[in-house]
């Protein structure tokens, strides 16, 4: 495998370090560096997506030490899909930020690149402990990004977010320690083999470690009842940061797919069936809680934050079903909900900017240029609720169809469909109140094209995902098959020879 695989880490790292070192660089220069690095990451992600779509699993041995002794980067279809989604979302968020919100605090562009470094690393790494390290990188960048702009509301939500995630990190380490003490390895491919053939005495220890990881990933993904930090954090962050954070909950879902689909999914005995009932219960609770929160919100940004929780519930339902079809629908819905969720945060900010009441859902002034904003809000709402003809419908239908064989089918159908109905009511009410009632304040200027374009481009991904739906679902089906099978991943990682023949391949 060529050195392409390490570029999604090197580009944001180099750009972030450069921006920090040149701390006094004028903002225009910082914007150029950030934009070029993000565009380069997007190009690399497209290239890697093309490589992964051929069905090959790329393995990059860092320091040329063979797995499981050295650290590996692994590019399978899932990692490539997540990299591309992140790069698209980051491009949209950065394009919005350079129109002014990056002026609100220092070092925005450096932190943005470090956030991308953490995200890309978490998707590429083939090692459980490195997953922890990259989680910490993306978390510490997100702590600072959340505080971007300052103010007591942001400080309060950041304090809660930081403390919760620090406790989560401790639980992650304990889980990793338990799994290591049961299996003696931390390489994900090696763990998949070790856990499948684990002797029954060590299984409860590995199961306890796995359950701790469920809690940690659930905290990252804002699964009920670990979701309390999310609405405050996301609704108090500046719009481009909130948009980028739309991928953060998905990192938790991604880690669950990786760890439970690949690592724990292949054994016999108690480990294989350990997580599904917990995940299903949590999924239905999350759907219900997120829906109630969205309908009850009195602030559009908070409502969009609850939409993120609802999408996590939907994803978790698909994940818990565990079949290849369900996983395929989950991945499709993951891409959709990330891009649309990010776009909705931008739209909510655009609406809030033009009103004296801000994004509060009360009858007041209409924002100037409400006609165009209404179209954007309608597209985002239709996509988020899952109505035809946009991509939310496709994703939800894929998950609903996959649920048919399960004994939980009634619960899943009821939860997803009733939640969609309530979201439809809530979003319609918000849209009517914000965009149809009241008069435009004569002094307000409509939002500039530079602000509207990023939101519109992210929203345009939704119809594109329908137009190229056949091609994309073929990709997600192949991805799901690759994860469920798992043998290709294990063989590719453990079979990758070092580039230099001098490296030892066994412990003396």
């Amino acid at each position: 495998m060529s050195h392409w695989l390490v570029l999604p880490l090197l580009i944001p790292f180099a750009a972030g370090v450069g921006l920090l070192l040149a701390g006094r660089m004028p903002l225009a220069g910082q914007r150029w560096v950030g934009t070029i690095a993000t565009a380069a990451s997007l190009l690399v992600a497209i290239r890697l997506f093309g490589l992964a779509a051929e069905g090959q699993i790329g393995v990059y041995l860092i320091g040329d030490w063979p797995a499981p002794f050295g650290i590996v980067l692994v590019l399978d279809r899932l990692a490539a899909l997540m990299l591309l989604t992140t790069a698209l979302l980051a491009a949209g968020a950065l394009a919005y930020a350079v129109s002014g919100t990056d002026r609100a605090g220092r070092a925005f562009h450096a932190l943005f690149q470090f956030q991308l470094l953490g995200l890309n690393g978490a998707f590429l790494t083939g090692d459980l402990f490195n997953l922890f390290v990259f989680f910490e990188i993306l978390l510490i960048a997100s702590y600072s990004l959340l505080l971007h702009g300052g103010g007591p509301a942001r400080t309060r939500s950041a304090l809660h977010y930081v403390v919760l995630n620090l406790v989560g990190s401790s639980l992650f380490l304990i889980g990793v320690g338990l799994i290591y003490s049961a299996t003696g390895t931390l390489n994900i491919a090696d763990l998949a083999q070790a856990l499948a053939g684990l002797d029954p005495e060590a299984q409860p220890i590995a199961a306890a470690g796995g359950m701790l990881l469920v809690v940690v990933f659930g905290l990252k993904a804002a699964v009920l009842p670990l979701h309390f930090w999310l609405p405050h954090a996301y609704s108090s962050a500046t719009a481009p940061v909130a948009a980028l954070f739309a991928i953060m909950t998905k990192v938790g879902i991604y880690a669950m797919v990786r760890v439970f689909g690949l690592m724990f999914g292949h054994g016999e005995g108690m480990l294989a069936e350990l997580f599904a009932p917990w995940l299903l219960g949590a999924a239905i609770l999350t759907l219900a809680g997120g829906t109630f929160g969205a309908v009850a919100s009195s602030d559009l940004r908070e409502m969009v934050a609850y939409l993120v929780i609802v999408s996590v519930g939907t994803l978790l339902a698909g994940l818990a079903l565990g079949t290849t079809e369900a996983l395929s629908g989950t991945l499709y819905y993951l891409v959709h909900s990330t891009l649309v969720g990010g776009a909705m945060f931008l739209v909510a900010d655009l609406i809030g900017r033009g009103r004296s009441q801000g994004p509060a859902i009360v009858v007041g002034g209409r924002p100037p240029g409400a006609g165009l904003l209404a179209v954007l809000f309608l597209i985002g709402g239709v996509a988020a609720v899952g109505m035809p003809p946009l991509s939310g419908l496709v994703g939800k239908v894929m998950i609903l169809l996959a649920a048919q064989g399960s004994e939980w089918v009634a619960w899943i159908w009821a939860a997803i469909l009733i939640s969609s109905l309530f979201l439809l009511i809530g979003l319609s009410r918000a849209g009517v109140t914000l965009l149809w009632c009241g008069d435009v304040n004569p002094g307000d200027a409509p939002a500039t094209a530079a602000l509207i374009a990023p939101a519109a481009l992210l929203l345009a991904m939704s119809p594109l995902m329908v137009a190229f739906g056949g091609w994309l679902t073929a990709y997600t089906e192949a991805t799901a098959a690759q994860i469920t099978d798992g043998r290709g991943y294990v063989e590719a990682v453990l079979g990758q020879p070092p580039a230099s023949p001098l490296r030892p391949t066994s412990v003396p």
Partner: protein
Amino acid sequence: MAALLALVIGLLVGCGVYLLLRARTFSVILGIVLISYATNLFLFAAGRLATNQAPLVGEGPPYADPLPQALVLTAIVIGFAMTAFVAVLALRARGEFGSDRVDGKPREDGP
């Protein structure tokens, strides 16, 4: 030795959770520090406890597992950075809220 270590880890976690639930920023930071100490000890014990064994591969079969030691070092570094960050954040919160309560509300009782 294993029982003693388990007791110490349990005690640290217990104190940490108690302090964390006090919901005052200073206690919360101390609680997080205690929990991260306990985590590091736990991670160290994941490689099995051993005495009088070579720390490195290559000096014969009975050697201590080197991997958890490397993991603990990484975890200590990360935990240190995070503690520094949360301490600065707590100071800023103290300045902005005028109280040390984590929910940002003023204290009803006296100092």
